[in-house]
């Protein structure tokens, strides 16, 4: 598989604060990758570096280019929505379409207008007159009409109500996604994107703590609900995380032999959200 994004020892410091600490990343074409981490973990910094919006140390190649120096050509093949609230207040919907159509060689105007025709949004409206949900739809219409190889979304639904969020992801799945595209999405709303993703990257304190496809997650990780009387035996098998639910202890294992764990209790594959909490509080990476 062709590598779309490759980062080696990607580091970004703001003064004494290290936002990215020798992060290594490999993202293949055709995947839908969730970059997931708590606030301040370095998600946005990583995306800014990938999109050529900030300087960095280390090696980074995106679509065969060096992002910071070749942002202009990179943006012909990549597009991004960095938060939905960034369309300028003074811009009119029809102006936005005219402008992107004029400057972007891969923009397909009919796709954008077709998408907007399904909404209540009129062309002469200025962004300041639109609700946040409507602005999202305009931004999506503009971005999804671009035939890009890489689509990056940074906290795309931040500040949206549940209805607007659902519209957003439905449009993404139904109107956009196909096997030729790669989507990189950051969020801390893990549940929202769980069903969408093919790959997971967890980031914490500037370091990558997990980089795995979802299929691998299912074989690599297992959670066992252990009754109190077998807890010591379970703990002896070296779980990397433990939590209490409904009077039982749930132990999380990585690369463990499922047959040996079976006697302790019921096995299940942890959800992305569970795994996220386990990985980040467990510490052991």
């Amino acid at each position, binding site marked *: 598989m062709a590598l779309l994004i490759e980062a080696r020892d990607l580091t970004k410091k703001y003064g004494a604060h290290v936002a990215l600490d020798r992060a290594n990343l490999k993202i293949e074409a055709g995947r839908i990758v969730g970059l997931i981490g708590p606030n301040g973990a370095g998600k946005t910094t990583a995306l*800014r570096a990938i*999109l*050529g*919006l*900030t*300087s960095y140390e280390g090696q980074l190649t995106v679509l065969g280019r060096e992002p*910071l120096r070749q*942002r*202009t*050509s*990179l*943006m*012909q093949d990549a*597009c*991004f*929505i*960095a*938060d939905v*609230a*960034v*369309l*300028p*207040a*003074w*811009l*009119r919907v029809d*102006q936005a379409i005219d*402008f*992107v159509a*004029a*400057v*972007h*060689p891969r923009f397909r105007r009919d796709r954008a207008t077709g998408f907007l025709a399904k909404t209540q949004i009129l062309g002469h409206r200025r962004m300041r007159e639109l609700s946040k949900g409507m602005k999202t739809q305009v*931004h999506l219409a503009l*971005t999804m009409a671009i035939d890009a190889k890489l689509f990056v979304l940074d906290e795309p639904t931040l500040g949206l109500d549940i209805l607007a969020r659902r519209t957003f992801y439905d449009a993404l799945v139904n109107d956009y996604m196909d096997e030729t595209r790669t989507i990189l999405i950051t969020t801390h709303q893990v549940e929202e994107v769980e069903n969408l993703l093919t790959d997971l990257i967890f980031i914490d304190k500037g370091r990558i703590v997990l980089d795995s496809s979802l299929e691998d997650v299912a074989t690599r990780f297992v959670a066992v609900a252990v009754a109190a009387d077998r807890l010591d035996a379970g703990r002896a098998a070296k779980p990397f995380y433990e939590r209490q639910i409904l009077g039982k202890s749930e132990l999380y294992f990585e690369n463990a032999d499922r047959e040996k764990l079976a006697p302790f209790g019921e096995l299940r594959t942890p959800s992305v959200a569970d795994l996220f909490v386990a990985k980040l509080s467990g510490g052991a990476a």
Partner: protein
Amino acid sequence: MNTNMWLIRREFWENRAIWLLPAVFGAMLIVAALFGHVQLPALTSPNEIHTFGAAFLVAFGLMFYTVMSVYATWYLLDCLYADRKDRSILFWKSLPISDTDTVISKLIVALIVIPVVSFVAADITALLAAFIVSIRLRASIGSTLWQPDVWLQMQVLWIYTVFTAAIWYLPVAGWLMLVSAWAKRAVILWSFLPPLVLYIIERWFLGTNVVGRVISRRLTGLPAVALNTSGGKSWHVDGDTLTLPSSVFHFINPSGFFASPQVWIGAAVGVALIIAAIQLRMRRSEI
């Protein structure tokens, strides 16, 4: 080229004051011409008539140019700051447009587009005002306000002014854009604070005034460099009588302008500041 045209168009969308401000200012002057007190002096000598007609137009040109220069200063300070403040830079940077093109388009708007708009607005307003005044005073067409040769000569002066001012004020524009690309807040303060601090330090510790002189000469020195201000052919005041040169070509001084080292040193500093602004624009996305 196409992209650059759209970038300039974009500036008109965002900064409607580029045309609204001269429209409103022109409308005010028209209202004054319609309802204010108007009077034309009784002039007999050809020289007096010529001078009055030219002074009438220069007054309009100067008024619009002054108002629009103040606006252009504000525009330059805001142009690389506003979209960082409201984060819309993240939208603009998602498009395949280089930071160089973006910065240059804004520079062209400030140094070429806004001055051209101001002189066009000045011409239109002067034409309307001359028409209104002529009717109100029942003055004949062909009087002092209607001298086609003077009108044409003024267009030469406007074009010359736009061109020389764009080069002369390059370092000023470069500095304002650098502040605009750099500052996290208070762009106005940052625009004059560093030069002011330099000036004060120099005065206190060295007792000299190089910084102050360089800055004030840059801000006010364009007429002295670009225009003929000496010699019998140029303008002069004799008692109560102002005499303007008989031809604009005696007034402008392109050879002197382009021979001046001040012009070229300033342009070089300007280019360096603009390159720095582009570099900052590449690296700074948000505040």
